[in-house]
């Protein structure tokens, strides 16, 4: 390497260094940009949902910027997001949150994917008093810690399947039902379980099987054998995508007949695609569905969001993307109402949020959870070999009638 090249390289690196330090010192509001920070799982075990989250964020940023951006004190600003890859690792996520706040000077945060990672980041944002709007951490324990800077646009985990129990009671002529449940031993699924316990208490229903599945387990044969022997009115399963896929596979293979089957993560597991007809009649909790009648001025309706998202990213948006997009709408609304970039003023504005987005109504409870949006249930229904998710509850949005009871395996083709 001759002297000239060396000099050139030194020069370039000096410039890069200067530029990078410049951008970080202005990071909170950089010229016409409002800079948000997010640690997202782009690699590791959450990488598919991490990418869904990022796509949701990006679509909303692009849309808001294109439609005039955010108006604060009479000036128009645009959103920009600094992303880091948290490798699906809570420790890394917490480190990156520190880095975003301390080195990049970020003053406003967007949430990561999953309850576990949100739990790792929340104490950091709380410590630095950084408002965080998160869209993918539903665990109830996030909202009972008294966090003041955490706001979640999604319904908390304990609400996921409560509706299903109400539905079962309704179908049973208002009489209590017998519930069998199997939940993985992780924060999220156990919160879903707590919701079922509440619903059972409220309706006077009896829980006859209450299995907690170890995380390492990928065989549910024992639980399902118990279900076969006790014949409950409803079977509830939650164990992320692995739990959903295992349950459907083994229910079909062991010919377990239950009148009603309610689960979580059918969407993420692509149940109807991977298991086809075997998954028919399964009832699934979802945060969002494109057919709901919510509206806003950025994305229009759910159906329009679905179309735009497909055009941009080439696949139908799962609810993880929709709620992530909604988080940006909430931030925009809060900035404009606060009419300031002061962290505490933005937080106060977030606290009094009351709006409708294509994703649903948003109003934050005292713990930061969204109290204005109900969960919905859809049922997998098949025509020939193609299976689809049809909304069946709440009745306001139901596009199809809830099919009950599930026909016995001996009667299914």
């Amino acid at each position, binding site marked *: 390497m001759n002297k000239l090249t060396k000099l050139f390289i030194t020069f370039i690196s000096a410039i890069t260094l200067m530029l990078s330090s410049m951008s970080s010192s202005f990071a909170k509001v950089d010229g016409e940009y409002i800079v948000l920070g997010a640690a997202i799982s782009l690699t590791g075990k959450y990488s598919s949902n991490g990418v869904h989250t990022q796509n949701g964020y990006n679509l909303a940023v692009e849309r808001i910027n294109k439609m005039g951006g955010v108006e604060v004190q009479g000036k128009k600003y645009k959103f920009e997001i600094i992303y880091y890859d948290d490798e699906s690792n809570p420790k890394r996520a917490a480190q990156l949150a520190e880095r975003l706040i301390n080195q990049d000077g970020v003053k406003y945060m967007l949430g990561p994917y999953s309850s576990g990672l949100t739990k790792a980041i929340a104490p950091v944002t709380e410590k630095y008093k950084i408002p965080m709007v998160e869209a993918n951490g539903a665990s109830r324990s996030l909202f009972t810690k008294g966090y003041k800077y955490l706001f979640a646009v999604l319904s908390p985990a304990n609400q996921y399947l409560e509706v299903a129990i109400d539905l079962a009671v309704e179908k049973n002529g208002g009489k209590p039902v017998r519930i069998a449940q199997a939940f993985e*031993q992780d924060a999220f699924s156990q919160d879903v379980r707590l919701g079922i316990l509440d619903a059972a208490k409220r309706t006077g229903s009896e829980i006859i099987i209450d*299995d907690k599945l170890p995380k390492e387990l990928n065989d549910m044969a024992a639980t399902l054998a118990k279900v076969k*022997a006790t014949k409950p009115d409803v079977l509830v399963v939650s164990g992320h995508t692995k739990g959903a896929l295992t349950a459907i596979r083994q229910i079909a293979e062991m010919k377990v007949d239950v009148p009603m089957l309610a689960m979580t993560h059918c969407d993420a597991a692509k149940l109807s695609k991977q298991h086809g007809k075997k998954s028919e009649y399964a009832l699934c909790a979802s945060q969002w569905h494109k057919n709901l009648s919510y509206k806003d001025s950025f994305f229009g309706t759910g159906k329009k969001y679905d179309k735009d998202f497909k055009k941009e990213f080439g696949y139908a948006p799962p609810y993880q993307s929709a709620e992530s997009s909604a988080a940006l709408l909430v931030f925009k609304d809060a900035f404009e109402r606060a009419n300031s970039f002061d962290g505490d003023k933005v937080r106060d504005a977030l606290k009094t949020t009351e709006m409708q987005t294509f994703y649903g109504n948003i109003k934050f409870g005292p713990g930061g959870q969204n109290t204005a949006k109900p969960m919905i249930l859809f049922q997998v229904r098949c025509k020939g070999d193609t299976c689809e998710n049809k909304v069946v509850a709440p009745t306001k949005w139901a596009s199809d009638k809830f099919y009950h009871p599930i026909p016995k395996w001996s009667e299914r083709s």
Partner: protein
Amino acid sequence: MDFLIFKAPILMVQASLDGILLGILFALIAYGMALQWGVMNIINIAQGDLVILGGYIAYTMYLAGIHPAWGVIVSPIIMFFVGWALYKLVINKVVDRDLFISILATFGIAIIFQQLMNFIFGADVVVAQSEYGTTMLFDNSVTLPNSKIFSAVVSILYAIALVIYMKKSRLGRAIRATAQNARAAKILGVDTEKVYAATFGINAALCGIAGALIAITLTLHPYVGLPYTVRSFMIVIVAGLGNLPAVAISGMGLGLFEEFADYILGTEFRIGAVFMLLVFILVYRRFKLSKKREYLK
């Protein structure tokens, strides 16, 4: 709800069959581990990840429209070469070293495999459909997925084939000789380097078979390898090295024990119960050994 299994004894039949069928599959993975542990003195932490890779091979075939059961033939062939290559690249450098170094090396391999699989196949949980249907016994009160029966039968067939191969073939005898005394085998003209590579390849092939079976009976995900490593490790600890009948019995025994623990103690304790049993067996063994020593004195 207490002790449902005693109220409905038919569940015992279901539990036993479930436990045995799954145990046989685990025994196959454990046998691979015992083999290379015995021959090369290497504890392979990447064992489970080799299994999952084998599963993804079958899954890829399934995506291409081939019945995933063919994976039990294709997957071991590919995996044999993967194992061979792994030996040539990494394992041959740690084979004569401290056990700790080989654990570290295979741990690194495990991480690389996980990330590679995540990169290539994505982080979604996937299943391959065999459409084998169900066997119903006792008036439909016991139901067994045919895919599980298929996987047990395939495991047994491969195990028998392997035992015969180890007894009769030249390479098999060389492997056994190396396991007994590598130095002596070398002096007598055995190419131990080749034996090691073949052993690691055979182990990977066994993992490939098991993986293909798991693709049609359970679920696949790039990061679920570790439970398979731990389970086969346990089976080997209980059974000892290089003894196939013992590995098979210990695999089935652990499977059975786990199923019954589920019914009696509760699902949340089934894996804990297996670990308790392991501790008990280790303590008991030590106790027996120390008695023997006293006797020898």
